[in-house]
C-alpha cells in the first residue's frame, strides 16, 4: 500500500529518511517518476518535496554563492534575474530542458538525483563549479557536481541524505558562455550530446579560465581539461577553436543507443564547441570593431 507524505519542513524529511524505511521514493516535480508506474508500484512511501520551504528559492547564501533550492523548477531558473546575470550558462541549459510544461514541473534537484547522462543542466553546473548541498542528520555536506554524479542513475547521495540545494560561486568580470545541444529534432528533445562552456573574456581577444563540459558522451557528465588547456590564455581564433574541438572529440567516450551512434556523438561534440565558440569569436570581433570605431570617433 502506497503512502504519500507531503512535508512542509526539511527536518521532517530528514527525520523520516534517517528512519531508513525501505522502498521510499523522494519526489519533487514528478516528471521522471509519474511516467514510470512500475517505479511507483514498488514504492511503499512517497515523500513529496514540493512544499518543503527550505528547498525553495534562489538567493545568495552567507558565503556569497548563488543558492538554488533543490525544488526550484527549471523555468524558475531560466527566468530568475540573478541566474541570468551571474550564471547565464545555467539559464541557457535549463531553457533547453524538455518543454515549457516540463520546465514548469521538473526541478534542479530532480535533474541531479536522476543523474541521466543526457541531463541538460549538468554540463552547465560542472562548468560553473557548482556544488551539491546534501542534508542529513549529520548536517550539510558539499560535493562538487562531478563528484556527486557517479553513473547513469547513480549518485553519491546516501540513503539518509537529501539534496538540499545547489551552490554556484559568483564570478565577476566579463564572461562568455554557451550551451549547445544536438538532439533528434529542433523542438523538445533529449540530448544526443551537449557541450557547455564558459570563460572570462578579455579586450585583447583572450579567453581565460575556460571551463568545458559535455553531456551524453560518457556514463556521466564530463569536463574536458584538454580543451580548456587549448583555450586558456589564448587569443580566440578559428584555428584555436579547431584545436579545442578536436580535444572534445578525443575526450568523448560515447556509445551507440537508440538516439544516436558513438561515432556521431564523438564528432558532434567538436561541432557543437565549434559553433558555440565561433559565435563568441564573431561577437568579440564585433565588439572590437565597435570599440575601434568609437575610439576613432573620439580622436
Amino acid at each position, binding site marked *: 500500500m502506497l503512502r504519500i507524505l507531503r512535508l512542509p519542513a526539511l527536518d521532517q524529511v530528514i527525520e523520516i529518511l534517517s528512519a531508513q524505511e525501505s522502498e521510499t521514493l523522494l519526489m519533487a516535480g514528478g516528471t521522471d517518476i509519474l511516467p514510470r508506474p512500475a517505479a511507483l508500484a514498488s514504492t511503499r512511501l512517497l515523500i513529496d518535496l514540493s512544499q518543503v520551504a527550505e528547498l525553495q528559492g534562489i538567493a545568495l547564501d552567507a558565503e556569497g554563492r548563488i543558492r538554488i533550492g533543490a525544488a526550484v523548477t527549471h523555468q524558475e531558473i531560466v527566468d530568475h534575474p540573478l541566474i541570468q546575470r551571474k550564471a547565464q550558462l545555467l539559464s541557457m541549459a535549463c531553457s533547453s530542458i524538455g518543454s515549457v510544461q516540463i520546465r514548469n514541473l521538473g526541478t534542479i534537484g530532480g535533474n541531479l538525483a536522476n543523474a541521466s547522462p543526457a541531463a541538460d543542466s549538468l554540463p552547465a553546473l560542472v562548468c560553473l563549479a557548482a556544488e551539491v548541498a546534501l542534508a542529513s542528520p549529520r548536517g550539510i555536506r558539499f560535493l562538487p557536481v562531478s563528484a556527486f554524479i557517479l553513473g547513469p542513475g547513480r549518485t553519491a547521495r546516501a540513503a539518509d541524505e537529501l539534496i538540499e540545494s545547489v551552490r554556484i560561486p559568483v564570478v565577476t568580470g566579463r564572461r562568455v558562455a554557451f550551451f549547445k545541444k*544536438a538532439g533528434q529534432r529542433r*523542438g523538445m528533445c533529449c540530448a544526443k550530446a551537449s557541450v557547455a562552456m564558459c570563460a572570462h573574456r578579455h579586450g585583447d581577444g583572450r579567453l581565460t579560465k575556460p571551463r568545458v563540459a559535455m553531456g551524453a558522451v560518457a556514463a556521466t557528465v564530463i569536463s574536458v581539461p584538454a580543451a580548456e588547456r587549448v583555450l586558456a590564455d589564448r587569443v580566440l581564433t578559428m584555428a584555436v577553436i579547431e584545436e579545442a574541438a578536436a580535444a572534445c572529440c578525443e575526450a568523448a567516450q560515447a556509445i551507440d543507443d*537508440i538516439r544516436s551512434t558513438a561515432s556521431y556523438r564523438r564528432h558532434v561534440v567538436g*561541432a557543437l564547441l565549434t559553433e558555440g565558440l565561433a559565435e563568441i569569436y564573431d561577437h568579440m570581433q564585433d565588439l572590437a570593431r565597435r570599440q575601434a570605431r568609437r575610439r576613432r570617433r573620439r580622436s
Partner: protein
Amino acid sequence: MKCTVVGKRVERKDARAKVTGETIYPSDRSREGMLWVVAVRAAHPHARILSIDTERAAAAAGVVRVLTARDVPGENAFGIQFHDMPVLCSDRVRYLGDVVALVGAESRRAARQAAALVAVDYQPLALLTDPEQALDPATPALHPGGNILHEVHFHKGNISVGFQKSAVIVERSYQLPMMDHAFLETEAGLSYFDENDVLCVESCGQYIYRDRKQIASVLGLAEEKIRVSAEMVGGAFGGKDDITVQIQLALMTYVTGRPAKMVASREESIVAHSKRHPASMWFKTGASKSGKLMAVEARFLSDTGAYASLGGPVLNLMAEHAAGPYLVPHVKVDGHVVYTNNGFSGAFRGFGCTQACVGIESQMDLMARALRRDPLAFRQANVLHQGDAAGLGYEMKTAVGAEPTIRAARAGKLYRQRRRIKKDRTHVSPSLAPFIRRGVGVASQMQGLGLGVGIEDQAEVEVVLGPGGAVRVKVGTTEIGQGAYTAYAQMTAERLGVPLEQVEIVGADTGTCPDSGATTASRTTYAVGNAILLAIAKLEQRRSAWAAQGTGRENLSARANFTVPTQDRQLGDGLPHLLYSYGTHVVLVEVNTLTGEISVEAVEAYLDGGRVVSPLGFEGQSEGGIAQGIGYTLFEEVLLDRGRFLNTNFDTYILPSSKDVPTAIHTVPIEVMEKSGPLGAKGISETCTVGVAPAILNALEDAIGIRFVRLPVRAEDVILAREESPHES
C-alpha cells in the same frame, strides 16, 4: 460555375465544439457500470501457444471476466481483405500485437494488473524478419498460402529497347522505413447493449459498415443486431482503417452483457496497429539525349508483416505509380509483398504512392542532373496529359493536372529565385556561414483517387429538409480531422442555396446513417459530395413536382447512391484508377555541415485536387501533409529488433514538432476542374504529402552533393556520408 459558399474560407463545422473541449472522442466515452478492457498481447513475436492459464487473472480483485479464443462464438478471424488476423490467438502468435486474452475488470488498473497474471506457455518459433528470406520457398511459412502475400509483374513496350534508346541510364536502390501514423488519440471505444438489445460499438474506425460486418461474423450475430459509430476521431491517416478495438469491445460486452471501454496506451498502439509498409525498391530509368524519358524499370519488395491487411493493394498502387506522372514508352515493374514477423503494415496516407514517389522522383532528378537539364523543365517535357498512356499502359481518361502544377512551380518564387535564396547566409554568424549549405529540390506526383477497379466503391447519403429551412445530411464517413464534414456542408449549402449554418452533418452511425463507404483513398469529398448532389437533385425534382400539384411539405428527404467510376480494364485489386490528384512540391533545405543537422526552411505546394471546396481546410491538409512528409524523411522510423519494437513512445519515436516545420509554407491550388466531380472537386488529402520526401532528398543533393537513398536521413547519415564522400562540394 460561380460559387458562393464553396471556395470560401468558412469556419469548420466542428471547430467550436473542439476548441471548448465539448467534442466527445472515443476515448472520452463512458457509461454507467462499464468494464475496462485490457488486451493481453503476445510475449514473443513468433511462437506456438502451448497453453493459456487465466485462472489467477480471473480470480484477481476487480476482474469480471477473462476471455480467450474459446469465448469467440463465431469466426475467430478478421481483416479488410482476408480474414487472416485472429481475434484471440489460440495456437500461434505472429507479432507482438497479437492478442491471446482480454481482461474485463471494474477499473483500468485492475484490468492491467490482471493482464499480467494471464500465464501463457509459449514455444518460440523461428523468426522471419528479413523480407528477402521470405521470398525463399524453403523458409517456413507464416500463413497457409506461403510467405508471398501478392506479387505484380507488369510491362509496357519493351524495356530493353527503352534502355537501348537511352543516352542516360540511372540505377539506384532505395530503403524506406516502417512509419507509425502517430494519431494523437490512440485506439479507443465503448460498447454496450442498448434498450433494444442492439450491441452498440462507439469507436474510432474509418469504415463503420465494414466494422459492423466484421463484428457480426466474429460474434455470429445478424448485422442488424449491431450498431457501430465513429463520428469524431482523434486522427487516423489510414491507421484506423483496420479494426483495432471494435471486435474486442463487442466481444466483452457480448459475453458479459456489460458496457465495456478500451483505450490503448501509446506503447500498445505503436506495437499493435498497422504501419506504413517498409519497402526496398530498385529503379533503373533511362532518358534520351534530347531529354525524353525512355524507360522505367522498378522492382519492389514490400514487407506487410504478420498479416495481409491491405498489403496487396498497397503494392498494386506502388506499381501503378512507379513511373510517376510521366509518359514513358517502356515500363517494367515487378514486385512482391511478403509476410514477416515485423509488426504489420496496412493503409497509410499515400498508400504505396508515397514509397514509389521517393524512387521515381529521385530518379527524375538524377537523370535531369546527368542530362544537365533544369529538373522542373525535364519533368514538364515528359509529363502525362489527358489521353496519354499511363505507366502501366491504360489511358489517362480524366483531367490531368500534372503539367499545370509543374508550370506553376517553375513560376513560383522559391524556384525562380533559388540561386539567390540558396546563397543567403544572413541568418548565421559570419564564421559559421561556410558550414551552412542550402539546396532547393522538387518533386511531382500523382495519386489515385478512390478504391480503384474491382473494389466496390459507393457512397450513399441521405439529405433531409426539416422545418424552417434546416437541412440535415446523413453520411457514413468518419470525421478524422480532414474537414470532410465542412466540405459536405458547403456543397449542400451551395446547391440548396441555404446559409451554411442551416446545414447539419449527421455522421458515421450505422443506426442513423447510410453506408457512404470508407474514409480512405482521398475519396470522400468526391464520392460523398457527388452522392449529396444527387440526393439534392432528387429532392428538388420532388419539390417541383409537388409545387406543380400545389401541395407543399416541410419534411422531405432523399437518399442517393454514387458509385465512383473506374477504368474498364482491371489490372489487379484496386488497379488502376480513373481519377488522380496531382501536385508539385518545391522545398528549400538547409544543412549544417558541422553538426549534420538538416532543416526544411520553406515549402511551396502546387496541388491539383480539382475545385477547392474549403480553402482553409485545403491549406491545413497541405501543411499537415508536409509535416508528415518531413517526419518520414528526417525523423520517423519504427525500429524493430528481432520482431520487438524499440521505440514505443514519443520520446524515441520522433515526430516533427512546431520548430521542425517551417513557417514559410505556401500552398497554391491548381484547380483543374474534374467534370465528374461535385462542382469540379476531387481530393488532395494524400497527394499533399506524397512528394515531400523526394523533394527533400533532391534538395539535399542540391545542397551538399550527396544522394540519400535511405529514409529517414538523420544528422548521423549526413556526417557519415560526408566523411565517405571523396569530393566534398
